[in-house]
C-alpha cells in the first residue's frame, strides 16, 4: 500500500512551487530562520527565471 500523508494532501492543493515548497519545508520541521533562507532562495530563483 502506498502511503498518502497530510503533506501530500496539502501539496496537492498548492497553486505554485512556492506554496508547495513552503508546505514541504514546514513538514520537514524547518525553523523560521531556515525556512526563510530556503524560501528566499526560491523567490530569487523565480526572479531569475
Amino acid at each position, binding site marked *: *500500500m502506498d502511503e*498518502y500523508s*497530510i503533506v501530500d494532501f496539502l501539496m496537492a*492543493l498548492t497553486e505554485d512551487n512556492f506554496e508547495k515548497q*513552503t508546505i514541504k519545508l514546514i*513538514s520537514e520541521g524547518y525553523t523560521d530562520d531556515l*525556512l526563510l533562507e530556503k*524560501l*528566499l532562495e526560491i523567490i530569487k530563483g523565480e526572479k531569475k527565471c
Partner: protein
Amino acid sequence: MLKYDYVIERTTGPSQIDRFSPNKIPKELDNLVLIEGPNSSGKSTLLNIIALGLFGNKSSKINSALQAKMNSLLDAKHQKLQFSFEIKSDLDKLIIRSKKTDPNSSEIIVEESLDGENFSPVIYENFEKKYNLIYDIPSNPTERLPELLKELRDEQRQYGNRIKDFGMFVHYTIQQIEKSRDLQRLKEVEERLKEQREKKKTIEDELPSSRDFLNMLQKAAFIMYYYHYLSEKSRLETRSEEIKKAIEDIDKTGRKVVREKIQEKRKIGELSNKLAENYNKVTPQLESILPKKLKKSFTIWKEFNPYTIEHDELTDIEIEASNYIKYIQEEMDEISKNPVYKDVSSIERILDLLKEFEYSELRISKLNVTIQDLINILREENEKRNSIIKKYKNYDNINRILNEIKGIVKEMKESLEAYKKESVAAEEYSKSSDLKYSQLNIELSQVTNELERANKKCREYHSRCILLGIEAKKLDGPYAEILKEIPKNEHVKECLALGEENVLKTITDLEGEISEKQKEMRALEITIKQYQTEKERLEKLEPHKYESFYNELNIIYTKVNRLSQKLLSIYNNDLNNLINNTLKEDDLKNNDNSRKYFDEVSKYLAHRIGNFRHIDRTYKAKTVNLILKTIITEDGSTIYLSDMGTGQSQSAFLLSLLNIKNDNRKIIALFDEIAMMDDISLKPVYEKMKELYYEKRLLLGVLVQKGNEINIKSLI
C-alpha cells in the same frame, strides 16, 4: 511492555461503595496485544484509563462517546479514581508514564524518559507534538469516516497556524529591516537629496543674472528719474515764485484802491458829523430870527436829516442855507445903516484903540478924566446901545455857521463824488483781478502739489541711488557726469522706454521674483539639510542581514499570508461543510476551488483507507465521495459504504486511522469493540500495526473484543 494498576471507588447506594481494580486482565501486557473477555472484565476501563492518562479527554479527534466515558471517570461525585501506568518500548529506552494519585483531584501527571531512567513532566501541547494517541471504537464506520476529516482539519489547521506564525516572523523581520538600515528608504532619500540639490543649483544659476539685471535697471531708472524730478522741481519752483509775485501784485493794487475808498468814506463821515453839529446848532437860532415869509422853507429845513450823504438833499441844504444867508445879510446891512449901530461901531473902534491904554494914568485934562475913565464911559455909552450890537453879532454868527454849513456841504459833495469814482474804479479792478487771482491761486496750488510730489520723488530716488552705492556728491554734480554711472544695456533700454510706472512695476516684479527664489533657496537648504541628516543617520545604522532582500521578504510575507488564509479560512470552511454534511454536489459545480479541494479530500480519504475487503475481494480505494457515500476503487468499481459489511468497513476505517505518512510521532493505538470484524478483515489491521511497531512508530497497540473468557493474545 504495559504495566498498569487502578482503583475505582464507586458509590452505588446510600452507604454502599463498590471498589474496582484489575483482577482479571493481567497488570502487565505486551506492547501489541489483543484482549478478549466477557462484559465487565475491565477491558474498556483499561483502554479508558490509558487514553485518559494520555490527555485523551482533551483530543478533538477522539469521538465524543469515548470522551464522555473518559470524563465520567473523572466525575468525583459518585466515584473516585486513582491510577498509574507505564508504557515501555521494547525496541528502545523510551518510557512514558502517567498517574493520578489523588482520588479527589482531577490532576493527572504525565512523564517521559528517553533514557529509561530520568523522567520529565510532559504537558498536553508537547505530548501532542510527540505522540499520536488513536483511540477508537469503530461501531459505525460509515458515519465514522467524517472523523478522519476532523483529524484532517486539525492537521490542516496546524499547518495553517505554523504558516501564519512564520508569516508573523517574516513581518517582524521586515520591521527589523525598516528599523535598521533601510536600503529602500536610503535610496529614496538619496534620490530626493539629488533632486533638491539640482533644484537649488538651477536657482543658484538663475539668481545672479536676475540680480544683475535688476541692479542695472534700478541704477538706470533711479538716476534718470532723480534728474528728471530734480529738473521738474526747479521748473516748478520758478513757476511758483512767478505766481506768488503775480498774486502779490494783485494784492498790492487792490489794497491801494480799497485804502483810498476807505479814506474818502471816513472823510464823508467826519464831514457828516460836522454838518449835523452845525445844523443842530444853527437850526434853533434860525427859528428865532427868520421872518414869517421864510417859515415855510424853514419847515423843509427842519425836516432835513443832518447825517444825510444824499447829494440832492445836500444841495437842498445848500440852497436853503444860501437863502438864509442872503436874508440875514440883508438884515445885517439894515442894521449897519442904523446911526446907533454906527455910533456903537465908532465907539467900539475907539475902545479898540484905547484898549492898549486901558491901565494908563494919563489924564485928559480938558475932560478931567483918565483914559481908563474914558474907556469906562465909552463902554457905558455902548452898553446903552448893546441890543443892536447883540442882534448884529447874532446875525453874523448865524451867517458864519450857515456859510460853514455850505462849505461842509460843498466839501461833502466833492468827497462823495470822489468816493463814487473810487468805488467804480475798485469795482472795475476787482472784476478783472478776481479771475486772474483765482486762476493764479489754482495754478499755485497745482504747482505746489506738483512741487511737493517732485520733491518727494527726488528724495525717494536720491535715497534709492544712495542705497545702490551711487555717491551723493556725484548725484549733486552735473548730469553729464552721472550719465557715466548709467549702465548700457539693450534690455534695460527697452525696459526704460515703457515709462516710469511700468519700469517701477517691472522692478517690483523682479524684486518679488528674486525674493521668491531666495525663499525657495532657503526652503531647499533646510530640506537638503534634513535629507542629508536622514541619509547620514540611515548610513550609520547597522545593516540587517536581509536588508537587500526587503522586496523579496515582502513577497514572501504576502504569499505565506495567502497560504495560511487558505488553510485556516477557505479550506477550513470547506472541510467543516463536509464534516457537517452540509455540502451538496451542486455547491461544487460553479466553484472550481471547492471542487479541487473536495477531490483532494476524496483522494486523501481513499489513501487513508488503502486496501480493504469487500465481500470476497480486496480492493484499493481510489477516491471516497462523502457526498454520495461511495468508494471508487483503483479498478473502477463503485462500492457504496452502506453495502459494505460492518466488519469490512470497520477494518477499512481502522486502517485509515493507521495509514499516516510523514508523521514521526509515536502511535498509541487503542481499539475497542472490534468483534464485528472476522479474521480476514482484521488481518490487514494486525499487519499494519505490526509494521508500525517494528518501524518503532507504534509504542502501544491494544485491541479489545468481546469473548466468553479472558484471552490475552500478543501480536508480536
